[in-house]
Protein backbone atom coordinates (compact mmCIF):
# COMPACT_ATOMS: atom_id res chain seq x y z
CA UNK A 1 0.00 0.00 0.00
CA UNK A 2 1.48 3.43 -0.89
CA UNK A 3 0.76 6.41 1.38
CA UNK A 4 0.43 9.71 -0.48
CA UNK A 5 1.47 12.44 2.00
CA UNK A 6 1.08 16.24 1.84
CA UNK A 7 4.48 17.40 0.54
CA UNK A 8 6.39 20.42 1.92
CA UNK A 9 5.27 23.31 -0.27
CA UNK A 10 7.98 25.92 0.30
CA UNK A 11 10.64 27.17 2.65
CA UNK A 12 8.20 29.09 4.79
CA UNK A 13 5.22 26.74 4.90
CA UNK A 14 4.33 24.01 7.45
CA UNK A 15 0.71 23.20 6.60
CA UNK A 16 -1.81 23.34 3.74
CA UNK A 17 -5.56 23.18 3.14
CA UNK A 18 -6.96 20.76 0.56
CA UNK A 19 -8.97 22.72 -2.03
CA UNK A 20 -9.67 20.05 -4.64
CA UNK A 21 -8.92 16.41 -5.53
CA UNK A 22 -7.90 15.96 -9.18
CA UNK A 23 -8.24 12.16 -9.03
CA UNK A 24 -10.84 9.73 -7.70
CA UNK A 25 -10.87 6.23 -6.24
CA UNK A 26 -9.88 3.76 -8.95
CA UNK A 27 -7.98 6.29 -11.12
CA UNK A 28 -4.46 5.34 -12.09
CA UNK A 29 -1.80 7.90 -11.15
CA UNK A 30 1.38 8.39 -13.21
CA UNK A 31 4.64 9.86 -11.84
CA UNK A 32 4.52 13.67 -11.74
CA UNK A 33 0.74 13.76 -12.25
CA UNK A 34 -1.15 16.54 -10.41
CA UNK A 35 -3.45 14.77 -7.95
CA UNK A 36 -4.70 17.68 -5.82
CA UNK A 37 -4.75 21.44 -5.35
CA UNK A 38 -3.65 22.67 -1.92
CA UNK A 39 -3.81 26.19 -0.52
CA UNK A 40 -0.69 27.45 1.30
CA UNK A 41 -0.39 30.76 3.15
CA UNK A 42 0.91 32.30 -0.08
CA UNK A 43 -1.16 30.74 -2.84
CA UNK A 44 -2.97 27.67 -4.21
CA UNK A 45 -0.54 25.10 -5.62
CA UNK A 46 -0.84 21.97 -7.84
CA UNK A 47 0.39 18.97 -5.88
CA UNK A 48 1.86 16.12 -7.94
CA UNK A 49 2.39 12.52 -6.98
CA UNK A 50 5.86 11.03 -7.38
CA UNK A 51 4.58 7.51 -6.85
CA UNK A 52 2.58 5.54 -9.38
CA UNK A 53 -0.48 3.34 -8.66
CA UNK A 54 -4.27 3.31 -8.54
CA UNK A 55 -6.17 5.39 -6.01
CA UNK A 56 -7.45 3.05 -3.27
CA UNK A 57 -8.83 5.58 -0.79
CA UNK A 58 -9.02 9.43 -0.48
CA UNK A 59 -8.52 10.27 3.22
CA UNK A 60 -8.15 14.07 3.36
CA UNK A 61 -11.42 16.00 2.96
CA UNK A 62 -11.93 19.25 1.04
CA UNK A 63 -11.20 22.21 3.30
CA UNK A 64 -9.19 20.10 5.74
CA UNK A 65 -6.12 21.94 7.06
CA UNK A 66 -3.20 19.62 7.80
CA UNK A 67 0.49 19.75 8.58
CA UNK A 68 3.07 18.73 5.96
CA UNK A 69 3.46 14.93 5.91
CA UNK A 70 -0.18 14.08 6.61
CA UNK A 71 -1.28 10.95 4.72
CA UNK A 72 -3.89 12.29 2.25
CA UNK A 73 -4.62 9.16 0.17
CA UNK A 74 -3.72 5.52 -0.27
CA UNK A 75 -2.57 4.04 -3.59
CA UNK A 76 -2.32 0.45 -4.66
CA UNK A 77 1.03 -0.28 -6.28
CA UNK A 78 0.93 -1.91 -9.71
CA UNK A 79 -0.44 -5.46 -9.39
CA UNK A 80 -1.31 -5.05 -5.69
CA UNK A 81 -4.84 -5.95 -4.57
CA UNK A 82 -6.61 -4.26 -1.70
CA UNK A 83 -6.11 -6.31 1.53
CA UNK A 84 -9.60 -7.16 2.87
CA UNK A 85 -11.02 -4.79 5.49
CA UNK A 86 -7.84 -2.78 5.91
CA UNK A 87 -8.82 0.73 6.75
CA UNK A 88 -5.56 2.48 7.19
CA UNK A 89 -6.49 5.56 9.16
CA UNK A 90 -4.87 8.61 7.71
CA UNK A 91 -3.17 9.67 10.86
CA UNK A 92 -1.36 12.88 10.22
CA UNK A 93 2.27 11.98 10.70
CA UNK A 94 4.66 14.71 9.68
CA UNK A 95 6.99 12.76 7.43
CA UNK A 96 9.43 15.55 7.13
CA UNK A 97 12.39 14.61 9.21
CA UNK A 98 12.44 16.70 12.34
CA UNK A 99 15.22 19.23 12.22
CA UNK A 100 18.29 17.04 12.20
CA UNK A 101 18.94 15.99 15.79
CA UNK A 102 22.22 17.68 16.09
CA UNK A 103 24.17 17.58 19.30
CA UNK A 104 23.59 20.76 21.30
CA UNK A 105 25.74 23.55 19.96
CA UNK A 106 29.08 23.50 21.66
CA UNK A 107 28.70 26.30 24.17
CA UNK A 108 30.42 29.33 22.71
CA UNK A 109 33.54 29.62 24.84
CA UNK A 110 32.50 32.18 27.46
CA UNK A 111 35.16 34.88 27.35
CA UNK A 112 37.45 33.97 30.25
CA UNK A 113 37.06 36.76 32.73
CA UNK A 114 40.59 37.97 33.08
CA UNK A 115 41.44 37.62 36.77
CA UNK A 116 42.41 40.97 38.19
CA UNK A 117 46.08 41.78 38.22
CA UNK A 118 47.73 40.29 41.34
CA UNK A 119 47.26 42.54 44.32
CA UNK A 120 44.26 44.11 42.68
CA UNK A 121 41.07 42.83 44.33
CA UNK A 122 38.17 41.92 42.07
CA UNK A 123 35.33 44.13 43.26
CA UNK A 124 32.28 44.95 41.15
CA UNK A 125 31.74 48.63 40.55
CA UNK A 126 28.33 48.34 42.19
CA UNK A 127 29.96 46.78 45.27
CA UNK A 128 32.61 49.50 45.32
CA UNK A 129 29.98 52.28 45.20
CA UNK A 130 27.74 50.67 47.86
CA UNK A 131 30.68 50.05 50.19
CA UNK A 132 31.62 53.68 50.05
CA UNK A 133 28.06 54.78 50.79
CA UNK A 134 27.56 52.37 53.65
CA UNK A 135 31.08 52.89 54.98
CA UNK A 136 31.88 49.20 54.66
CA UNK A 137 35.57 48.41 54.49
CA UNK A 138 36.15 46.23 51.43
CA UNK A 139 39.41 44.71 52.54
CA UNK A 140 37.65 42.86 55.31
CA UNK A 141 35.28 41.11 52.93
CA UNK A 142 35.69 37.84 51.07
CA UNK A 143 33.88 37.89 47.72
CA UNK A 144 31.26 35.31 46.78
CA UNK A 145 31.05 36.50 43.13
CA UNK A 146 32.69 34.89 40.09
CA UNK A 147 36.36 34.18 40.67
CA UNK A 148 35.97 35.35 44.27
CA UNK A 149 34.91 38.82 43.24
CA UNK A 150 33.23 40.99 45.88
CA UNK A 151 29.64 41.62 44.83
CA UNK A 152 27.02 44.16 45.89
CA UNK A 153 25.37 41.46 47.98
CA UNK A 154 28.61 40.82 49.89
CA UNK A 155 28.71 44.50 50.84
CA UNK A 156 25.05 44.60 51.84
CA UNK A 157 25.56 41.63 54.11
CA UNK A 158 28.56 43.37 55.69
CA UNK A 159 26.63 46.63 56.16
CA UNK A 160 23.75 45.02 58.06
CA UNK A 161 24.43 44.03 61.76
CA UNK A 162 26.24 40.79 61.42
CA UNK A 163 25.27 37.54 63.11
CA UNK A 164 28.65 36.71 64.64
CA UNK A 165 29.91 33.29 63.60
CA UNK A 166 29.67 30.75 66.45
CA UNK A 167 32.87 29.04 67.52
CA UNK A 168 33.02 26.00 69.80
CA UNK A 169 34.27 27.83 72.87
CA UNK A 170 33.05 28.39 76.41
CA UNK A 171 30.17 30.84 76.72
CA UNK A 172 32.37 33.54 78.20
CA UNK A 173 35.05 33.03 75.55
CA UNK A 174 32.40 33.08 72.86
CA UNK A 175 30.98 36.31 74.20
CA UNK A 176 34.42 37.82 74.34
CA UNK A 177 35.25 36.75 70.76
CA UNK A 178 31.91 38.09 69.59
CA UNK A 179 32.46 41.33 71.35
CA UNK A 180 35.96 41.75 69.95
CA UNK A 181 34.84 40.94 66.40
CA UNK A 182 31.95 43.34 66.66
CA UNK A 183 34.13 46.11 68.05
CA UNK A 184 36.75 45.57 65.31
CA UNK A 185 34.08 45.66 62.60
CA UNK A 186 32.53 48.72 64.22
CA UNK A 187 35.90 50.48 64.32
CA UNK A 188 36.39 49.89 60.58
CA UNK A 189 32.91 51.10 59.74
CA UNK A 190 33.35 54.27 61.78
CA UNK A 191 36.80 54.85 60.26
CA UNK A 192 35.46 54.59 56.70
CA UNK A 193 32.48 56.88 57.40
CA UNK A 194 34.50 59.50 59.26
CA UNK A 195 37.26 59.67 56.66
CA UNK A 196 34.68 59.98 53.88
CA UNK A 197 32.97 62.75 55.85
CA UNK A 198 36.19 64.70 56.22
CA UNK A 199 37.03 64.11 52.57
CA UNK A 200 33.72 65.20 51.13
CA UNK A 201 31.95 67.48 53.63
CA UNK A 202 33.23 71.07 54.07
CA UNK A 203 32.54 71.43 57.82
CA UNK A 204 32.07 74.78 59.57
CA UNK A 205 31.79 75.02 63.38
CA UNK A 206 29.93 77.43 65.68
CA UNK A 207 29.42 77.23 69.51
CA UNK A 208 27.30 78.90 72.20
CA UNK A 209 27.50 78.76 76.04
CA UNK A 210 23.98 78.16 77.37
CA UNK A 211 23.11 78.86 81.07
CA UNK A 212 20.96 76.06 82.48
CA UNK A 213 20.08 77.36 85.93
CA UNK A 214 16.38 77.76 85.08
CA UNK A 215 16.30 74.49 83.18
CA UNK A 216 17.91 72.39 85.93
CA UNK A 217 15.83 73.87 88.76
CA UNK A 218 12.69 73.19 86.66
CA UNK A 219 13.98 69.62 86.06
CA UNK A 220 14.62 68.97 89.74
CA UNK A 221 11.15 70.22 90.64
CA UNK A 222 9.62 68.04 87.90
CA UNK A 223 11.56 64.96 89.08
CA UNK A 224 10.45 65.56 92.63
CA UNK A 225 6.83 64.83 91.63
CA UNK A 226 7.79 61.83 89.52
CA UNK A 227 8.45 58.23 90.58
CA UNK A 228 12.08 57.34 90.31
CA UNK A 229 11.45 55.18 87.23
CA UNK A 230 10.16 58.24 85.34
CA UNK A 231 12.96 60.48 86.49
CA UNK A 232 14.18 62.81 83.62
CA UNK A 233 17.82 63.40 82.76
CA UNK A 234 19.07 66.76 81.44
CA UNK A 235 19.80 64.95 78.12
CA UNK A 236 16.06 64.65 77.49
CA UNK A 237 15.70 68.44 77.83
CA UNK A 238 18.60 69.08 75.48
CA UNK A 239 17.30 66.66 72.83
CA UNK A 240 13.80 68.16 72.93
CA UNK A 241 15.23 71.68 72.58
CA UNK A 242 17.35 70.63 69.55
CA UNK A 243 14.29 69.05 67.90
CA UNK A 244 12.16 72.19 68.48
CA UNK A 245 14.93 74.48 67.17
CA UNK A 246 15.34 72.38 63.98
CA UNK A 247 11.75 73.12 63.01
CA UNK A 248 12.89 76.68 62.14
CA UNK A 249 16.22 75.56 60.57
CA UNK A 250 15.27 72.74 58.12
CA UNK A 251 18.56 73.16 56.22
CA UNK A 252 20.32 71.43 59.09
CA UNK A 253 18.01 68.43 59.07
CA UNK A 254 18.39 66.11 56.04
CA UNK A 255 20.85 64.58 53.61
CA UNK A 256 23.36 65.44 50.88
CA UNK A 257 22.27 63.08 48.08
CA UNK A 258 24.31 62.10 44.95
CA UNK A 259 21.89 60.85 42.28
CA UNK A 260 23.05 60.10 38.68
CA UNK A 261 25.39 62.91 38.25
CA UNK A 262 23.71 65.77 40.13
CA UNK A 263 24.07 66.17 43.88
CA UNK A 264 22.15 68.36 46.35
CA UNK A 265 20.44 68.72 49.74
CA UNK A 266 17.37 66.63 50.42
CA UNK A 267 15.44 67.88 53.51
CA UNK A 268 14.54 65.13 56.04
CA UNK A 269 10.89 64.02 55.96
CA UNK A 270 10.85 64.15 59.80
CA UNK A 271 13.13 65.26 62.65
CA UNK A 272 14.86 62.01 63.62
CA UNK A 273 17.63 62.69 66.11
CA UNK A 274 20.57 60.29 65.86
CA UNK A 275 21.63 59.90 69.50
CA UNK A 276 25.31 58.94 69.81
CA UNK A 277 25.46 56.05 72.30
CA UNK A 278 28.86 54.71 73.30
CA UNK A 279 29.21 50.99 73.78
CA UNK A 280 30.79 49.77 77.00
CA UNK A 281 33.85 48.18 75.26
CA UNK A 282 34.41 51.08 72.79
CA UNK A 283 32.66 51.97 69.59
CA UNK A 284 29.73 54.26 69.02
CA UNK A 285 26.34 53.87 67.40
CA UNK A 286 23.82 56.66 66.75
CA UNK A 287 20.35 55.13 66.46
CA UNK A 288 17.50 57.49 65.74
CA UNK A 289 14.78 58.91 68.01
CA UNK A 290 12.06 59.18 65.34
CA UNK A 291 9.93 62.37 65.20
CA UNK A 292 11.58 63.78 68.34
CA UNK A 293 9.93 67.21 67.95
CA UNK A 294 6.46 65.71 68.46
CA UNK A 295 7.25 63.70 71.61
CA UNK A 296 6.90 64.69 75.30
CA UNK A 297 9.93 64.70 77.60
CA UNK A 298 8.58 61.59 79.36
CA UNK A 299 8.25 59.79 76.01
CA UNK A 300 11.72 60.94 74.91
CA UNK A 301 13.22 59.76 78.22
CA UNK A 302 11.59 56.33 77.91
CA UNK A 303 12.64 55.94 74.28
CA UNK A 304 16.17 57.08 75.08
CA UNK A 305 16.47 54.57 77.92
CA UNK A 306 15.14 51.80 75.71
CA UNK A 307 17.50 52.79 72.85
CA UNK A 308 20.55 52.69 75.13
CA UNK A 309 19.55 49.28 76.51
CA UNK A 310 18.97 47.76 73.04
CA UNK A 311 22.05 49.40 71.53
CA UNK A 312 24.26 47.89 74.22
CA UNK A 313 22.52 44.52 73.74
CA UNK A 314 23.11 44.72 70.00
CA UNK A 315 19.47 44.31 69.07
CA UNK A 316 18.69 47.48 67.19
CA UNK A 317 16.30 47.46 64.26
CA UNK A 318 18.05 48.27 60.98
CA UNK A 319 15.65 51.16 60.29
CA UNK A 320 16.76 52.80 63.54
CA UNK A 321 20.30 52.62 62.27
CA UNK A 322 19.77 54.53 59.07
CA UNK A 323 16.90 56.98 59.55
CA UNK A 324 18.62 59.69 61.62
CA UNK A 325 18.33 63.09 59.84
CA UNK A 326 20.86 64.75 62.22
CA UNK A 327 23.14 63.51 65.01
CA UNK A 328 23.36 64.81 68.61
CA UNK A 329 26.36 63.86 70.72
CA UNK A 330 26.25 64.53 74.46
CA UNK A 331 29.45 63.87 76.46
CA UNK A 332 27.42 63.81 79.66
CA UNK A 333 28.71 64.51 83.17
CA UNK A 334 31.93 62.55 82.55
CA UNK A 335 32.76 64.53 79.42
CA UNK A 336 34.90 67.49 78.65
CA UNK A 337 33.75 71.05 78.39
CA UNK A 338 32.83 70.99 74.72
CA UNK A 339 32.85 68.74 71.67
CA UNK A 340 32.99 69.60 67.95
CA UNK A 341 31.91 66.43 66.15
CA UNK A 342 32.37 65.01 62.64
CA UNK A 343 29.13 64.90 60.64
CA UNK A 344 27.85 61.41 59.83
CA UNK A 345 27.38 61.20 56.01
CA UNK A 346 25.00 61.57 54.33
CA UNK A 347 23.68 63.94 57.09
CA UNK A 348 24.52 67.64 56.89
CA UNK A 349 24.82 68.69 60.58
CA UNK A 350 25.79 67.52 64.09
CA UNK A 351 24.99 69.13 67.47
CA UNK A 352 27.45 68.60 70.32
CA UNK A 353 26.93 69.17 74.06
CA UNK A 354 29.83 69.28 76.53
CA UNK A 355 29.65 68.61 80.30
CA UNK A 356 27.11 70.66 82.24
CA UNK A 357 29.26 72.39 84.87
CA UNK A 358 29.28 75.36 87.25
CA UNK A 359 30.95 78.32 85.54
CA UNK A 360 31.47 82.01 86.32
CA UNK A 361 28.78 83.97 84.44
CA UNK A 362 28.58 87.77 83.98
CA UNK A 363 25.05 88.90 84.82
CA UNK A 364 24.24 92.64 84.37
CA UNK A 365 27.54 93.82 85.74
CA UNK A 366 27.87 91.27 88.51
CA UNK A 367 29.55 87.89 88.49
CA UNK A 368 27.58 84.73 89.27
CA UNK A 369 28.30 81.02 89.32
CA UNK A 370 25.77 79.12 87.19
CA UNK A 371 25.46 75.63 85.62
CA UNK A 372 26.41 76.13 81.95
CA UNK A 373 26.68 73.84 78.89
CA UNK A 374 28.60 74.59 75.71
CA UNK A 375 26.48 73.68 72.69
CA UNK A 376 28.31 73.32 69.36
CA UNK A 377 27.15 72.87 65.76
CA UNK A 378 29.18 71.24 62.97
CA UNK A 379 27.45 71.82 59.62
CA UNK A 380 27.96 71.19 55.90
CA UNK A 381 28.89 74.46 54.23
CA UNK A 382 27.46 73.15 50.90
CA UNK A 383 24.04 73.37 52.49
CA UNK A 384 24.06 76.11 55.14
CA UNK A 385 26.24 79.04 56.21
CA UNK A 386 27.75 79.98 59.57
CA UNK A 387 25.30 82.82 59.97
CA UNK A 388 22.33 80.42 59.90
CA UNK A 389 24.19 77.93 62.15
CA UNK A 390 24.72 80.62 64.78
CA UNK A 391 21.06 81.66 64.70
CA UNK A 392 20.15 78.00 65.31
CA UNK A 393 22.25 77.89 68.51
CA UNK A 394 20.71 81.17 69.68
CA UNK A 395 17.23 79.68 69.14
CA UNK A 396 18.39 76.59 71.14
CA UNK A 397 19.53 78.85 73.96
CA UNK A 398 16.18 80.70 74.13
CA UNK A 399 14.21 77.41 74.14
CA UNK A 400 16.26 76.14 77.08
CA UNK A 401 15.46 79.31 79.04
CA UNK A 402 11.75 78.32 78.92
CA UNK A 403 11.96 74.59 80.00
CA UNK A 404 8.29 74.40 80.91
CA UNK A 405 7.33 74.96 77.26
CA UNK A 406 9.47 71.98 76.17
CA UNK A 407 7.32 69.42 77.96
CA UNK A 408 4.52 69.36 75.42
Amino acid sequence: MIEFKLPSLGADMDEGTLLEWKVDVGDTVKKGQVVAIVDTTKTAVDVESWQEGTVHRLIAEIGQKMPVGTVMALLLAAGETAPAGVDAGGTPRPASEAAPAVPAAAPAAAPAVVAAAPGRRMISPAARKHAEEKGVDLDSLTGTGPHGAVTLEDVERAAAPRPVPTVEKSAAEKAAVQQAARAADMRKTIAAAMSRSKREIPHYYVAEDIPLAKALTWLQAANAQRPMAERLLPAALLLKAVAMALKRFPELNGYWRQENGNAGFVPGAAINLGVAISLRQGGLIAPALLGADGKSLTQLMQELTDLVKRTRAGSLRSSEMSEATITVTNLGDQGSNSVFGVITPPQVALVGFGRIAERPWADNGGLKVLPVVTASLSADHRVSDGHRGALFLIELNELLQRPEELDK
Partner: protein
Amino acid sequence: MTYSEIRAVALATLLSIAPEVEVDELRDDRTLRSQVDLDSMDWLNFLLGLHEKLKVEIPEADYAKLITLNDVVTYLQKKLGAA
Protein backbone atom coordinates in the same frame (compact mmCIF):
# COMPACT_ATOMS: atom_id res chain seq x y z
CA MET B 1 20.46 43.65 106.41
CA THR B 2 24.15 43.69 107.29
CA TYR B 3 26.72 45.98 105.66
CA SER B 4 28.21 43.16 103.60
CA GLU B 5 24.75 41.97 102.42
CA ILE B 6 23.90 45.52 101.23
CA ARG B 7 27.36 45.74 99.59
CA ALA B 8 26.68 42.47 97.73
CA VAL B 9 23.36 43.82 96.41
CA ALA B 10 25.09 47.03 95.29
CA LEU B 11 27.82 45.08 93.43
CA ALA B 12 25.21 42.79 91.74
CA THR B 13 23.30 45.84 90.56
CA LEU B 14 26.55 47.43 89.32
CA LEU B 15 27.42 44.22 87.36
CA SER B 16 24.01 44.16 85.69
CA ILE B 17 24.88 47.56 84.19
CA ALA B 18 28.64 47.12 83.65
CA PRO B 19 29.28 43.39 83.28
CA GLU B 20 32.96 43.93 82.46
CA VAL B 21 33.72 45.29 86.00
CA GLU B 22 36.32 43.28 88.04
CA VAL B 23 34.35 43.38 91.30
CA ASP B 24 37.19 42.19 93.56
CA GLU B 25 39.48 44.97 92.34
CA LEU B 26 37.04 47.71 93.35
CA ARG B 27 38.25 50.00 96.16
CA ASP B 28 35.40 50.92 98.54
CA ASP B 29 37.02 54.18 99.53
CA ARG B 30 37.69 55.59 96.02
CA THR B 31 35.11 57.49 93.92
CA LEU B 32 33.06 54.78 92.30
CA ARG B 33 32.45 56.57 88.96
CA SER B 34 36.19 57.01 88.36
CA GLN B 35 36.78 53.25 88.78
CA VAL B 36 33.79 52.28 86.64
CA ASP B 37 32.78 54.02 83.38
CA LEU B 38 29.19 55.03 84.25
CA ASP B 39 27.58 57.86 82.30
CA SER B 40 24.56 59.73 83.72
CA MET B 41 22.20 57.13 82.21
CA ASP B 42 24.16 54.24 83.81
CA TRP B 43 24.27 56.04 87.16
CA LEU B 44 20.52 56.60 87.05
CA ASN B 45 19.94 52.92 86.17
CA PHE B 46 22.29 51.86 89.03
CA LEU B 47 20.32 53.89 91.59
CA LEU B 48 17.03 52.69 90.02
CA GLY B 49 18.26 49.07 90.48
CA LEU B 50 19.01 49.67 94.17
CA HIS B 51 15.65 51.39 94.61
CA GLU B 52 13.82 48.38 93.07
CA LYS B 53 15.78 45.71 94.98
CA LEU B 54 15.87 47.46 98.39
CA LYS B 55 12.68 49.49 98.12
CA VAL B 56 14.59 52.64 99.10
CA GLU B 57 13.89 56.18 97.80
CA ILE B 58 16.99 58.06 96.57
CA PRO B 59 16.13 61.65 95.82
CA GLU B 60 18.29 63.59 93.31
CA ALA B 61 19.35 65.91 96.10
CA ASP B 62 21.23 63.06 97.81
CA TYR B 63 23.32 62.29 94.63
CA ALA B 64 26.15 64.50 95.99
CA LYS B 65 26.54 62.22 99.07
CA LEU B 66 27.04 59.06 97.00
CA ILE B 67 30.67 59.28 95.79
CA THR B 68 32.34 56.03 96.92
CA LEU B 69 30.92 52.52 97.20
CA ASN B 70 31.24 52.88 100.97
CA ASP B 71 29.09 56.07 100.84
CA VAL B 72 26.43 54.18 98.89
CA VAL B 73 26.33 51.19 101.26
CA THR B 74 26.29 53.23 104.50
CA TYR B 75 23.62 55.57 102.97
CA LEU B 76 21.46 52.55 102.14
CA GLN B 77 22.12 50.92 105.56
CA LYS B 78 20.98 54.11 107.26
CA LYS B 79 17.86 54.30 105.02
CA LEU B 80 17.10 50.59 105.67
CA GLY B 81 17.90 50.86 109.37
CA ALA B 82 15.48 53.73 109.74
CA ALA B 83 12.82 51.89 107.72
